[in-house]
């Protein structure tokens, strides 16, 4: 009994190693888990893109489930995900606040005029410090925030139909229920 076990031990070690290596293959190193999940939204209060004399912050969104979408007119992938945001806005699923990250306000406004504006409002993060508070490392990024102001989900990279159907909408539905 012991002898057979000894012969199979190297095989077991090998299979274990194979499993580790195989899992490593399917991981995406660009996908960094957010440190902010189930943490309160970093507080911010920034000038609105379309009304720079008016400010908007996380405190204004208390009591609502909402999305914070990090975008910029310089960001190519943002253009890819934009139709999906437009659709979300048209169906009035959740209010979307845009964090216009390190952009020129006039470029940003022209971009929205051209591709549609799904945002309840966009705020200008000119120096990128609010984005740092949110742990943003590349646009687009989308945060789902619940009524108590806690971050419940983060999607890095462009939103598409699959992401919307399988990730964002179920999370939003769940949060709206509670």
């Amino acid at each position, binding site marked *: 009994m012991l002898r057979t076990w000894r012969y199979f031990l190297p095989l077991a070690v090998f299979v274990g190693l194979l499993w580790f290596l195989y899992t490593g293959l399917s991981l995406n*190193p*660009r996908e*960094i*888990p*957010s*440190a*902010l999940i189930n943490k309160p939204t*970093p507080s911010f209060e920034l000038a609105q893109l379309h009304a720079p004399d008016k400010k908007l912050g996380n405190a204004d969104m208390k009591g609502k489930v909402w999305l914070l979408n990090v975008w*910029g007119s*310089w*960001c*190519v*992938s943002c*253009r*890819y995900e934009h139709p999906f945001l437009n659709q979300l806005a048209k169906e009035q699923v959740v209010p979307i606040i845009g964090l216009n*990250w*390190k*952009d*020129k306000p006039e470029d940003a406004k022209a971009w929205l005029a051209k591709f549609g504006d799904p945002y309840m409002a966009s705020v200008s993060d000119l*120096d*990128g*410090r609010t*984005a*740092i*508070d*949110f*742990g943003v*490392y*590349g*646009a687009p990024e989308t945060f789902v925030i619940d009524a108590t102001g806690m971050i419940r989900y983060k999607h890095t*990279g*462009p939103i598409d139909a699959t992401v919307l159907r399988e990730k964002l909408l179920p999370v939003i539905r769940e949060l709206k229920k509670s």
Partner: protein
Amino acid sequence: MMHNLLANSSVGAAFRAFLARKARQCLAFILLFCGIVFAAHAQTATPEMPPMSPEMELRLKKLETELRCLVCQNQTLAESPAGLAGDLRREVRLLADQKKTDSEIKEHLRARYGDFVLYRPPVDGKTYLLWFGPFCLLIGGGIVLWMMGRRRKANALPAAAPVSSEVLARADAMLKDE
């Protein structure tokens, strides 16, 4: 002739349409990929900061080599040319100007970007395997090697008894007889 056949038949047309569709998909994919990779590089430049003392510069340089650039991933904050790295260097500088210690600055970034931002991850439950795994493997390997050595010694044939000259002479005689 062959070319004509292919061009005229409906199969050929379908094939060409298929190729065109694939080419478009490929192009879209490449554009998307470039968008993600270069997104953070295309940001507007970081505003200049006032000069700092040589001691401060040395301290921050050292600190920045312990922090990871989230965009390039395998470069430190000190050496990365990415836009976000510039923003994070400025954040580090601002925190240092507020008299924050090195560990406070690291904690500040860790709260936003997670352990990933640190080149030296903290020793805790999640990272025990990472920190101590290699030593366990080394010790385990050593034990196996030692046990194998012992077994080999135990199994070795006992040293042959010295052969008397009489026996040697007999052997010689037998060989000569052959």
